[in-house]
């Protein structure tokens, strides 16, 4: 295979990498005032990349000596990632102006992180995986601390970095153990090597455990979740929205590929780990959220909880489970983006961000549409019909029952009952509580943010079911490339 062929298969990454450098250079020469232009440039870049992704034939293609794979799964995930990243770039514009942090690096960092995520979901080799993961993480550490004038943000960046570095170390250690015991870092060969011996490859199990620990950190599954609330709370809101969406998609996709492709011979072994993480995440997420008074922390716990549900689909370890995870990811992405968009557009009279639940009391009276949107997202996250989030939960439960994991499904139901409590609490605060004294303003001039918010709300509303047909088809095709 020639370099040219490889380059054409890896076109999305090539476009992103080149684009990131161009944006960076432009930013350096034009200064911080170019933030707006660069942001739109980044969005256009994401669009171009999406075109190259869609352009790819759905057939499975390997490039660069089998370290890179382009298939329908990677294409599906990349579209999600690009959409999430584009939203994160756009939604930040008014915010950055408001907090006087308009620096040109923001879109560039997002593009770099996106590049890392695209590499992650296209990894066919543990080392490609690692490179992608690190590229994403390094950009993310900086993004977390982007608001340099605020102590919380700096603290978030530092914490994320220290813990992230530790988890990366674990992952790398696991990779080296797997390599040592299986003799390859390539997914297909690992799968072949694991099934070759006949008996269980115990050494590779160590590697697996550490690799999973590293991945669990990135998806913020319990017990590697503790950074999530702190980082979401501390990081600038658009950055937290970014963290909660695109990287989750990438890490979850990667998790699926590693578990269902590379370690497909050890399903019985890793299933235990995934089930444990799933149950723990669902319950910690649900229970942890109850006591929260900060919306961003609440959303952090909500994301932990949701990751638990996604892991149910992964634990099912069948095609239905995989496509359920993908469906869940898609819906989750929109719900979470929407929730953060609402949080982002709330400010008090002085222009400070409004983040506590108490301040949201009676929002329905002062800003009914905003409250309605947030209520839609909350109820959808709770998985209540007629909202679209119901479909996500239904799909994973169905997959779990399909795989005979009924106990997991029952525990999932139990935890979603607990989780429903705090989502409903938010709705109650919004609609039924007497209004708080805080004057809540919408973000001025954020037409695009409002547009995205409306789009997300419509997607989560029953109208979203109209999209279910094509969506289910796409997730099924994507999942089929793993089996």
């Amino acid at each position, binding site marked *: 295979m020639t370099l040219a062929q490889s380059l054409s298969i890896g076109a999305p990454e090539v476009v992103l990498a080149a684009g990131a450098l161009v944006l960076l250079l432009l930013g350096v020469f034009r200064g911080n005032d170019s933030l707006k232009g660069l942001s739109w440039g980044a969005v256009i870049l994401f669009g171009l990349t999406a075109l190259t992704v869609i352009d790819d034939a759905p057939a499975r293609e390997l490039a660069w000596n089998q370290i890179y794979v382009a298939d329908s799964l990677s294409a599906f995930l990349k579209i999600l990632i690009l959409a999430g990243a584009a939203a994160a770039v756009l939604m930040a514009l008014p915010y950055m102006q408001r907090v006087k942090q308009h620096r040109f690096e923001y879109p560039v960092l997002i593009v770099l992180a996106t590049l890392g995520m695209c590499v992650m979901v296209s990894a066919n080799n543990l080392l490609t995986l690692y490179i992608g993961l690190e590229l994403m993480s390094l950009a993310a550490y900086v993004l977390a601390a982007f608001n340099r004038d605020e102590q919380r943000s700096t603290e978030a960046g*530092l*914490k994320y970095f220290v*813990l992230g570095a*530790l*988890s990366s170390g*674990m992952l790398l250690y696991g990779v080296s*153990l797997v390599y*040592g*015991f299986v*003799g390859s870092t390539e997914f297909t060969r690992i799968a072949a090597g694991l099934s070759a011996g006949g008996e*269980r490859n*115990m*050494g590779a*199990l*160590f590697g697996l*455990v*550490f690799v999973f*620990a590293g991945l669990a*950190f990135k998806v913020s599954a319990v*017990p*590697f979740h*503790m*950074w999530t*609330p*702190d980082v979401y709370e501390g990081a600038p809101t658009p950055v937290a929205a970014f963290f909660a969406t695109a990287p989750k998609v990438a890490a979850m996709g990667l998790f699926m590929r590693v578990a269902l492709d590379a370690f497909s011979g050890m399903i019985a072994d890793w299933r235990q*780990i995934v089930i444990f993480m799933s149950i723990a995440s669902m319950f*910690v997420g649900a*229970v*942890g959220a*109850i*006591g929260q008074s900060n919306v961003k922390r609440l959303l952090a716990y909500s994301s932990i909880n949701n990751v638990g549900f996604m892991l149910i689909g992964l634990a099912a370890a069948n095609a239905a489970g995989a496509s359920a995870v993908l469906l869940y990811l898609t819906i989750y992405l929109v719900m979470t983006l929407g929730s953060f968009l609402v949080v982002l557009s709330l400010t008090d009279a002085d222009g400070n961000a409004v983040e506590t639940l108490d301040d949201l009391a009676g929002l329905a009276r002062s800003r009914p549409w905003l409250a309605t949107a947030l209520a839609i997202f909350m*109820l959808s996250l709770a*998985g*209540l*019909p*007629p909202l679209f989030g*119901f479909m996500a939960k*239904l799909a994973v*439960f*169905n997959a779990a*029952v*399909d795989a005979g994991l*009924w106990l997991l*499904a*029952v525990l*999932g*139901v139990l935890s*979603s*009952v*607990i989780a*429903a*409590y705090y989502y*409903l609490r938010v709705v*109650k605060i919004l*609609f*039924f509580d007497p209004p708080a004294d805080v004057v809540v303003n919408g973000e001025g001039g954020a037409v695009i943010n409002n547009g995205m918010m409306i789009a997300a709300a419509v997607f989560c509303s029953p109208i979203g079911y109209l999209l*279910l*047909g094509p969506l*289910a*088809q796409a997730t099924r095709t994507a999942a089929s490339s793993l089996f």
Partner: protein
Amino acid sequence: MTPQHLLLLIVALPFLGSFAAAFLPTRARTQATLLAGLIAVVGAVGIGSLYPAVSQGQILLSVTPWLPSLDLNLTFRLSGVSWLFAMLVLVMGALVILYARYYMSDEDPVPRFFSFLLAFMGSMLGVVLSGNLIQIAFFWEVTSLFSFLLIGYWHHNQSARDGARMALMVTGAGGICLMLGFILLGQMAGGFSLDTVLASKDAIHSSPYYPLALALILIGCFTKSAQFPFHFWLPHAMAAPTPVSAYLHSATMVKAGVFILILLWPVLSGTDLWYFAVAPIGAITLLIGAWVAIFQQDLKGLLAYSTISHLGLIVLLLGLGSPLAAVAAIFHTVNHATFKASLFMAAGIIDHETGTRDIRKLGGLWNYMPITATLAMVAAAAMAGVPLLNGFLSKEMFLAEVLEDHSGTLIDAVLPWLATIASAFAVLYSIRFIHQVFFVAPPEPLPRTPHEPPPWMRRPIEILVLACLLIGIFPAATIGPFLASAVRDTLGDQAPAYSLAVWHGFNRPLFLSLTALAGGLILYILFGGRLNAAKASPVVGRLKARRTFEAVVERGIAIAGWLHALAGTRRLQPQLRVLMIFALAAAALPFLFLGYSVGSERWTGVDPVFALLWLIGGSCALAAAWTAKFHRLAALILVGAAGLATCISFVWLSAPDLALTQLLVEIVTTVLLLLGLRWLPKRQPDIWPETRMPVQVLARRGGDLAIAIIAGLGMALISYAVMTRPVTDSIADFFTRNAYAEGGGTNIVNVILVDFRAFDTLGEITVLAIVAITVFSLLRRFRPASDSIETPEQQRVQADFDRRHADREVGDTVTDALMVPRLIMQWMFPVIITFALYLLLRGHDLPGGGFAAGIAMSIGILLQYMAMGTREVEDRLMVLPINWIGIGMLAAALTGAGAWLFGYPLLTTFFRYLDVPLIGEVPAASALLFDLGVFAVVVGSTVLVLIALAHQSIRTPRAARPAEPKAGEEQG
């Protein structure tokens, strides 16, 4: 229009209407009523028009392909039983809409009310008409949601908010359980479509998941149909406007659970489990509901508990599992809907006209509103089971059923008693309702003088009461055919023969009925007067399900908070600790439980010297960690010592090249760190003022130490387990075989760097160069302002010393201090350079190479800076690190590209040995040039960082110093 389209339209219409109503002006009461009423009537007519087909036993299906992959199509299914329920929903809906037009006041935003009500009607139709389980679960939850919105319609009212939330939490949670139960059921049946499920009774009964699925479905149904112990939400839902209570909480939504039980009765019932799970719950609910209803002082509360009791009756009938009982259940569902809805509406009128619902304050209304009173009396009589009314008929069937033997257990013996007692209670509360409200003189004047409501507000009640009478007197002619088609649909071949007649002769059920009527009457005569004083229902009132529920919720929140405080933390250290402990545990699992053990290779023993070396290294590392917080300099030196132990280990394990590189890297990093440390306080002795660590800190650090030791041992164990396994073919063999043959060198590491992996090396030195430039610019930009830095403490001490001695100038000590080492370092400079060049040249075959040489060279320059000070070095030496970097990069890249000239791929090496006079045979591979590039980049990068650090020392500190001690003061 085909029946299929008609079905779809009937379900869709209410939702469209709901959407439209939401956009009507707030005061458009009549228009909203017309819209909603029209939709209900059209739906009823539509469903009615499909009756001929249904009555022949046809099942009408409307399938819209949607998600065939998940076995999910948008399916609507009209069969006998769903026809009956759909009709109930639509007709009741129409009547309630008419009633609500007059009930709602002008101040309320009525279109919103109708919007919710229509949406509820649509979702209720969805529940009864859906042809697959998932769809049912979907619409099921939607009904809960709109019930929530309708209960909370007057959201300025605290009890409405609480009631709404409680209802949603209970029924919503039940709905989620129901969904999972349905998924399991679909799994057992092999598909979610209702036809598939209903056809797979045997598969379902024999499945091991049957008990679980049954339990989940029952939880769903019991929460929705307000069965004990989930019944408590229903009385609190009475905070809703009365039309909502009449429609949702007596006629339709609470019947959804019953509907599912009837629908799935053919496949779920018929087992002991079914009987023992359903029948007792129904019986308990029947009795408790009736008992509590007696003591209610709120009209709607009385009706709510009565509803609970009647729902319990229906559930009990279904639980009995016999076909006749199922017939009775279906029949009573319809009858209850008619008389209870009319009673609710009457209660609403009374509330409306008098301004109170308190039974104790009401009385004598017969004088003011005789028509309403008559209607209410008929409906209440039906509720009590008085003959010639519909309630009597189904109650007779019920009593006949409980007299049968079903399980041969104690339950059979108890049921007739229980049924009679509950019936007597029903008679009692019905009499109390009528007597207290319409006849007894009120204790104090009514809040308002009541009069008859507008006639159209009374119409719905009149219609319903007429239905009660007609069904009660001519059952076979009125409800007969509809009931028959529903029964045939549900029971199929099992459909029993039953007779709908008012008079069955003197038999045991009639006897029980009469006993109950008489008992109720006697009880009222005996105790009726005292009931007004009751604050809560005796015995059962203690249960206080609502308070229990709230306590559980509150307790749950408290526990959640406690758990969160216990396990959650915002501090970094505990988070790290958790991460480490879990990783440890995960890695320990294979060893502890999966029988993983060390490999089979022989244990070669430990050399005591080597062990000692590691002991020293380990202690240094430990000590470094322990002191890092208090004394950074000491920690750094200890880290260096640990690194040195690693170096020696490499030598020991015959890797001199690695050892050399490691050593040099250690030196450079240590020195650079040392230079960096000057910006930080040297030591922090004052962290603990009492110079002793508090116990908890000691414990914490001890714990961390233990974790570190265990983790280290664990890593060692894994490594040991790995290394004691036979080595499979590794890439190392390839390099040993080919290093000389193809790369022309015997130093394998170097050949890998400059030949096999030259491209990687090119990348690495590029990165190194970038890093150096980045560090340089960072240090230049982000250094502290000179206003804020002070002279280092050491220099101050030295300057003080100089000042105190008359014969010394300030600065002398600094100059003198390193006199001897300085001289040595200056002399060493040429030696080190020569050494570096030597390393470079021999690198291809012997330990050394461009990287090691570069590091060695940098050490030379470093020493110069340390010995002579920045100014002096730069006076004498032209160090241009950027040029070094640039030249190095160029050299490496050009050497690599040179291969193209000869037609080879990038970075192909060429080698031969040259015979140089005096020196002898020298390897002259093109790789040497490449190595030269590496050398130059390493030197340039290291020195660049060094310069950035060193230049900090020539800046003049301007910060205000602490007051300097006066000379002479401390001399003595």
